[in-house]
């Protein structure tokens, strides 16, 4: 356990050492927070996703590109501990940011902050149209469910990147940005094709009812405590995914020849 904590400290030191990067991260964080305040509660949860992805890429970047990997040459650590430490640290960062975002979201929602911003001046107080348009964002229940979904996605993306890193290592590729953009476009097209296949084939008779059940269970569980139970369910799915990915990463990293 002590070894894992030490390894987490090393990662944190590496993180802290790059003041320029963390400062930029902080600025980005504050800007997003400000935008989120103006728009609505549910957007605050996007910070979790962004910070989680940025922290993950920063730590991995520090290790491989900036040479922090050398640190592990002088620190006695087995591969298993390195992986567990890294997963624990990033999960902790995501969780702390998540809790912060959740508290901000809850407090601002309790203060009716968004309603004041949205309905002040330019809009009529009783405008039904505006009510309908902003209700998903000022509605505590919906905001919490959105938060749960984003938090879950953050954990999933973070843990998948880490697992991929430990399985394949960090590879600097030529035209990495172009390839990333192409991948993104390919992903969109693939998603579109998949949706079309589902919608225009008998597959829809299986997929649509299942989607509808997921929504109906989520909506049923989101009624009590203003969506807290549904959020909890989503968060647990996220953590479950992290545990599974961590186990996979340990196994893959142990197998891999460096």
């Amino acid at each position, binding site marked *: 356990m002590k070894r894992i904590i030490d390894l987490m400290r090393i990662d944190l030191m590496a993180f802290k050492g790059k003041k320029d990067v963390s400062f930029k991260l902080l600025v980005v964080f504050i800007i997003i927070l400000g935008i989120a305040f103006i728009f609505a509660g549910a957007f605050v949860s996007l910070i979790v996703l962004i910070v989680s992805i940025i922290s993950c890429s920063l730590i991995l970047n520090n290790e491989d590109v900036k040479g922090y990997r050398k640190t592990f040459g002088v620190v006695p650590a087995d591969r298993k501990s390195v992986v567990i430490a890294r997963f624990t640290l990033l999960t902790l960062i995501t969780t702390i940011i998540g809790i912060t975002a959740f508290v901000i979201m809850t407090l601002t929602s309790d203060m009716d902050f968004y309603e004041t911003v949205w309905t002040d001046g330019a809009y009529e107080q009783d405008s*039904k149209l505006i009510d309908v348009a902003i209700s998903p964002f000022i509605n505590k229940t919906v905001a919490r469910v959105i938060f749960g979904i984003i938090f879950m996605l953050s954990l999933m993306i973070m843990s998948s990147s880490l697992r991929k890193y430990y399985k394949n290592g960090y590879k600097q590729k030529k035209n990495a940005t172009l390839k990333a953009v192409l991948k993104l476009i390919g992903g969109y097209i693939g998603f579109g094709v998949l949706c079309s296949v589902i*919608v*225009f084939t008998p597959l*829809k008779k299986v997929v*649509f*009812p*299942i989607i*509808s*059940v997921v929504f*109906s*269970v989520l*909506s*049923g*569980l989101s*009624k*009590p405590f203003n969506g807290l*139970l*549904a959020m*909890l*369910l989503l968060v*647990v*799915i996220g953590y*479950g*995914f992290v*545990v*599974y990915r961590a*186990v*996979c990463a*340990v*196994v893959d990293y*142990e*197998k891999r020849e460096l």
Partner: protein
Amino acid sequence: MKLFKKMITRIAAVMLASGIVVSGTSFAAEEKEFKLPSGVSVNNFVKKTDIIANLTGIDGSNKKPPTSVIVFHGDEVLYTQYEGYINIEDDIKNDENAVFEWGSISKTMIWVSIMQLWEQGKIDLDADIRTYLPDNFFKNLKYDEPITVTDLMNHQGGWCEGIYDLFVSNEEDIKSLEEALRSCEPAQTFRPGEVSSYSNWGAALAGLIVQRVSGIDYTQYVHDNILKPLGMEHTAVSANHRDNMWVREQREKLRSYEMPMLVPIWDSKGDQLYYIPMYPAGAATGTIGDLTKYAQALVDDDHPLFEKAETQEKLFSGSAFYGKSDIPSCSYGFWPNDYAVRVYGHDGGTRSGVANMMFDPDSKVGIVMLTTASDRNVLTSYIPEYVFGYYSGDNLSVTNETKVEFKGEYTPSRSPLKGIACFYSFLSSVDLEKIDGITDIGNDVYKYSYIEDYTDRVTILGRSRYSDGTEGIRAGAVEYIPTKMYVSKICLLTAFFIIGISAIFVLLARRKLIKAKIIGSYKGNHILTCAQVAKVASIFAIVLLLAFTEYGPTKAVGIIVGVTQMICFALCALAVCAGIVFFVKRKTSKFGKICYIFSIAGNVITASAILVFEMYKFWGC
């Protein structure tokens, strides 16, 4: 796109509806033309309704599913519309010979039959129904109180929804009415006469009473006493429609259509020719002309269905009321609906399509609508308002109007409150605290004011006081009853889902570790693994139950789910015992001990949820 289409249709419908209401006054000075209860002249109504009918077909195709609408005034038909194709594939247009399934409108034939037998002195509406049924007919009654015939007509027999095959695809599966009823007796969850809980089973039971009291088969009774006297030659009432072969042949041509999510194209659902074993509750099938004859008879001063005019008057005098008022919530099986006038009728829905019948016994104006398009509700929703106008609530005698504050969750009475699907009643609970606009206007009557489609609307609700001291809300065929132990049960349900989903990750991780030979297989650990697999299977069974039982859980699905949950319960119970033994006897690390504690807790929660929510009880009661 579908949403867009819907929006356009709704906005157009609302605009036209507003136009109708406004123009209704501007036409007041016109020549002596008959005006509908909404205040709209017939000519104006026809023009507007034709536009709406065309609007509903925004799907890029000229061939639309069939919708038939008839508006009448006494004997006179004011408006007829045969729109679309009953079979787009075979190019068969909708016309007066098209037959449609009437769904629950069939129930009104049971109620009419009962009133006929009542006026002949053969049935006492206040008698216990056991008088008319075979000895020991009921096996699941919870209360000793008598269930009266009126209770059946008011859907107040106390039965909740159960697990049964409402529709069957094979004619061989159609049993006799008595057998069909005996095979799926639902649980009695409410005291008779106390809670309105719409029940197909209860209505079909009334059909059996008609059969036993009259001494002839129900189908034959309806033919002799309703269809023949009214000249309804194009209607079948039996489960397989073979009591009228012409109807059966016509029915085979009929196709149903739906517009799937995101795709603005009508998709054929095939013939959807299913049979209803409890046929009195929903198997009637016929032409719109016949349905019109039936509706016209119910507003006819010559009372062709009854010997005495008083019987027909009694039929629409109300048998259950909101609170202590004289506003009816049910009228001997017919549902009152307040528009600008009070109308009576019934709607219906089967796997094939939807139907609606409404009439105002005073003005003798009525409307009947039939369609096999699942997305044509716009017609059945808006056209009645064009005919009967909006209800403003102006006629309510309000002494002191106070805002009603509700606390806690309420469950619709027509929920599966017992058996494998009872967990769903917790998921579908309603938090009335969040609903604004409900005021108490005295006499235990609530006025619910809300805005829909930019129009102020009023709906009457009633406060129901139950024998256990709790209070609910009556809304026509359904009541919202306080959900007992809601918070603890919904938390248990959430824990059940969380543990089931976590089990997936545990199993995946375990598989990976075993494959990499990082962990071995300990003696006895198989039980824990089996319990994890069972928990995942339990979740999948729940998804199966909810996803593929659009018309309520069928018996087959019920058995699969129930047996899965039984196995899951047994394995979880075993795993709890194994977990305790391992925790005490095995020498493991602290982490290992924690894992055992989690495993025991997870299994206990899953087993408890299966027990508490009766997920194993596929037999329903």
